[in-house]
């Protein structure tokens, strides 16, 4: 009788155990935007992204955030202008949210639907592929987000009256680890 009670107890507690889920942590990251102008090709790099993922009921929700001011293009004057034009003081973070089924976390290509919030606007990117390479416990993710200035209503900065290209793809190189 006692054993039957114990089994019943454990059986009913299982869903509660499953809800506690798994947590993923972003341990290393390199995010770089590319800006193109007839006279300049510029890459702004940040290593300051923070990220976490919570898995629950077979679905994993991830959040990555990076302060806008941490992007370094190698020119402090340009970085200050970037901060101004993207309203980086009003909206100091770029956040990326996405969901993945827990069953897809180990596949070599991750098909992600991203919600990117930047400069006070949110853009949705569907089916963005990311390549995954597993190195022990670490999951090395690489890919590119096809973002544009118009997605976030950013007025294109110009040099010698020629505006920069609308496309500002963001390269992603991250290392995630389950906790």
């Amino acid at each position, binding site marked *: 009788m006692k054993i039957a*009670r114990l089994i*019943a*107890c454990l059986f*009913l*507690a299982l*869903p*509660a*155990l499953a*809800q*506690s*889920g798994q947590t993923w942590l972003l341990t290393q990251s390199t995010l770089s935007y590319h800006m*193109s*102008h*007839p*006279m*300049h*090709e510029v890459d702004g790099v940040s290593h300051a992204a*923070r*990220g*976490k*993922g*919570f*898995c*629950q*009921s077979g*679905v994993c*929700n*991830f*959040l990555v*955030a990076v*302060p806008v001011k941490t992007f370094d*293009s*190698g*020119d*402090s*004057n*340009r970085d*200050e*202008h970037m*901060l*101004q*034009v993207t*309203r*980086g*003081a*009003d*909206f*100091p*973070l770029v*956040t990326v*949210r996405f*969901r993945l089924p827990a069953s897809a976390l180990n596949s070599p290509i991750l098909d992600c639907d991203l*919600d990117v*919030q930047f400069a*006070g606007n*949110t853009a949705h990117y569907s089916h963005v592929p990311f390549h995954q390479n597993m190195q022990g416990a670490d999951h090395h993710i690489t890919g590119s987000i096809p973002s544009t200035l118009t997605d976030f209503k950013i007025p294109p900065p110009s*040099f010698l009256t020629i505006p920069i290209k609308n496309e500002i793809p963001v390269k992603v190189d991250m290392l995630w680890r389950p906790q």
Partner: protein
Amino acid sequence: MKFFLAHIFPVRFRLPLLLLVSGAFLGIPARLAAQQASLADSGVLETSSSSLSLPDAPLPQQQTQPAAQTPPQTPAQKPSAPSLSDLGLSPTQTAANPALQARLDRHTQMLKIHQRLGLLTLIPLAATLISSGGATAGHHNGTQTAGGNTVGRDLHASLGSVAVGMYAATAWYAIRAPKISEGPVRGGIKFHKYLIYIHAPGMVLTPILGAMAFDQLNKGEKVHGIASAHAAVAWTTVAAYTAAIVSVSWPIHLKL
């Protein structure tokens, strides 16, 4: 404990009680934690922690959410989606700073005027250099004559004055632009700033030497003394000024 169980809870109630307690210990804290994190992210969590014991209470509308860093969440995301506080970001890191944004806007606005005026200043500078050929002393049969072409000299002096005036206005917009970062400057702007130490004194010295040379020529004298350095100082100043414009755009990758 045994007495408590035997008298307060008869045998038939013990299993449901056990399940309830195990559920409370295993499941509810996790749900509450997730809900708390979600609320903290949306800026709604302003009540005391005692309200968390009522998970089914309707949530208020997100009226107080700061527009800056709270993305819209679907109801399905809410229970387990990580929040900015989960990432260890403090409110000061995520809060908007309108004062800084206003300073950035003013900084950019003033530097844009600085840039335009600086480029426009090249026009009178170039015109001054071209007109310098007609501002020299007159010559007759290989010997210098008194007076010379005074119209050419006047034109050169006028263009030089316009160039200096526009240079001063250009400099004023850069000097008065609010400072954003106190850190070290990086990139082409560093050389742009170094070159100030050449063209700024040059822009002061050139018209002084020019006025001295102008006076000497009008008196019918040969340009002498420190005034004879006018042309060399002027050319050095213009070279440094042009280099300053190019350096702020460096490196240039032409992609036509």
